[in-house]
């Protein structure tokens, strides 16, 4: 692999950009692998990379039904943060945020992670009370979080409606300054390139159609390109988790829903933070290209249709124009939907399963993007050692029968 550097950029500029090497090989599917990862999004690619790098398992295939990073990895709003409430979640997402901070160097790829800070707005007194508790909980876990007064918020975000006649007066908020946005395609490509360089085969346009299971253990994977022998399978397929797990005879406590996002036409820089309101259900940031990147809550019913329904679009945009009246006459350029896998407690499931050699990473719901590096790290550990990584012990599949839920409905709720 040619290392990307100022020198390689100069060299390739002088030769007219005609000799850049391919980022990854077009690998041929082999008949047997040590580990097969299903799903070539951020989580799957990061898992393969970590298997090769940390655990020396390089005979790995990543199977992707479409193209890599073409599912939810390319459909999110690219926010990373670790301002969760419960220690189990904060520990995990803080690990992930730290990996994002090191990602450029680790993967030799510019993922354009810029830590602009994420502000949560409190729109009534009671929400502010909860935010004090939430922010203090984050601080107690050694993670950065600051409470903000309305005056401080007005200074941070100049286009917010702070007038006296607003429908929802801003009572304050809190900020995690290390929160930020990155380029989501670059994250998928960076992991793909690094994993490929360590010997991982990335197979696109390859759909899994079933499993060979003998005596309760995985023996192989059936795909649209033929059968593969393997004893270990990692599943990282987000919204289609229930469908793929059912092929292995496993029922999951997962509901698939559509989560939409949208971007406006580009304008000059006017918003330099990520701003989120759990109460009215919207959040936005401004991309490097000047577009307002807007998101909200998931649609209200089960769906595998990657579109998004109009009432939710309307409610999210209504909330945005209420908070930012100055944006009300901007045009939307694009609106899209991704299918997210939501667990009953809005926390992930990274776990072994009743089928030996079948490991799952699901339940990322509306927040899978920020979890990519830690999700890959912990699933790779779980697969390599056949026991859960300490960070994901609380997120096992059997927590539902044990009643040990990690109820993050509030912290996971709106910003993704």
């Amino acid at each position, binding site marked *: 692999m040619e290392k990307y550097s100022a020198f390689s950029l100069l060299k390739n500029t002088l030769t007219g950009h005609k000799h850049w090497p391919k980022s990854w090989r077009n690998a041929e599917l082999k008949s047997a692998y040590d580990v097969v990862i299903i799903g070539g999004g951020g989580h799957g690619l990061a898992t393969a990379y970590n298997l090769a790098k940390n655990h020396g398992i390089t005979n790995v295939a990543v199977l992707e039904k479409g193209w890599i990073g073409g599912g939810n990895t390319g459909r999110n709003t690219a926010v990373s943060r670790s301002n969760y409430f419960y220690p189990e979640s904060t520990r995990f997402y803080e690990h992930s945020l730290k990996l994002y901070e090191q990602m450029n160097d680790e993967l030799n790829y510019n993922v354009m992670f810029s830590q602009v800070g994420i502000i949560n707005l409190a729109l009534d007194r009671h929400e502010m009370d909860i935010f004090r508790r939430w922010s203090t909980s984050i601080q107690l876990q050694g993670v950065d979080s600051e409470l903000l007064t309305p005056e401080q918020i007005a200074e941070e975000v100049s286009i917010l409606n702070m007038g006296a006649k607003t429908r929802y007066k801003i009572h304050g908020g809190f900020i995690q300054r290390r929160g930020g946005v990155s380029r989501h395609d670059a994250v998928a490509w960076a992991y793909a390139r690094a994993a490929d360089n360590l010997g991982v085969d990335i197979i696109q346009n390859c759909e899994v159609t079933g499993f060979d299971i003998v005596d309760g253990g995985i023996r192989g994977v059936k795909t649209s390109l033929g059968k593969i022998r393997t004893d270990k399978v990692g599943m990282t397929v987000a919204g289609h988790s*229930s*469908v793929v797990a059912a092929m292995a005879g496993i029922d999951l406590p*997962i509901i698939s829903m559509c989560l939409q996002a949208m971007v406006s036409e580009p304008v000059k820089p006017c918003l330099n933070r990520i701003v989120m309101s759990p109460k009215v259900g919207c959040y936005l940031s401004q991309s490097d290209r000047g577009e307002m990147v807007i998101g909200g809550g998931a649609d209200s019913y*089960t*769906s595998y*249709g990657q579109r998004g*329904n109009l009432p939710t679009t309307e409610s999210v945009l209504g909330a945005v124009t209420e908070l930012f009246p100055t944006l009300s006459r901007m045009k939307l350029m694009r609106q899209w939907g991704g299918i997210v896998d939501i667990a009953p407690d809005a926390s992930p499931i990274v776990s072994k399963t009743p089928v030996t050699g079948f490991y799952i990473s699901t339940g990322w719901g509306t927040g899978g993007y920020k979890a990519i590096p830690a999700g890959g790290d912990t699933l790779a550990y779980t697969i390599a050692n056949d026991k859960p990584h300490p960070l994901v012990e609380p997120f096992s599949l059997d927590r*539902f029968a044990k*009643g040990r839920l990690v109820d993050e409905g509030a912290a996971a709720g709106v910003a993704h």
Partner: protein
Amino acid sequence: MLKINCPFCGPRTEDEFTCGGQSHIARPVTPAEVSDQQWADYLYQRINPKGVHYERWRHTFGCRQWFNVARDTVSHEIYAVYQMGEPKPSITEKGV
């Protein structure tokens, strides 16, 4: 936008309704006697099909009545609307 034919009020737009998730879930008759796993299955396990889904809806901003809907989770097409307590209609997997 879905058009849902409320059995009590007739066709109305989706934003008058609330989806209550999977229908026909039977609560164990003797909760004290089932295992933790069976109880967890009742509370949390959902079928989440890619295709026809039988689900409960409520006409929240209308008559406030609950009823059942058979809907495709990919195309969102509504195949049938039927009363609470009625058995599932059999839907052939058209368009799935």
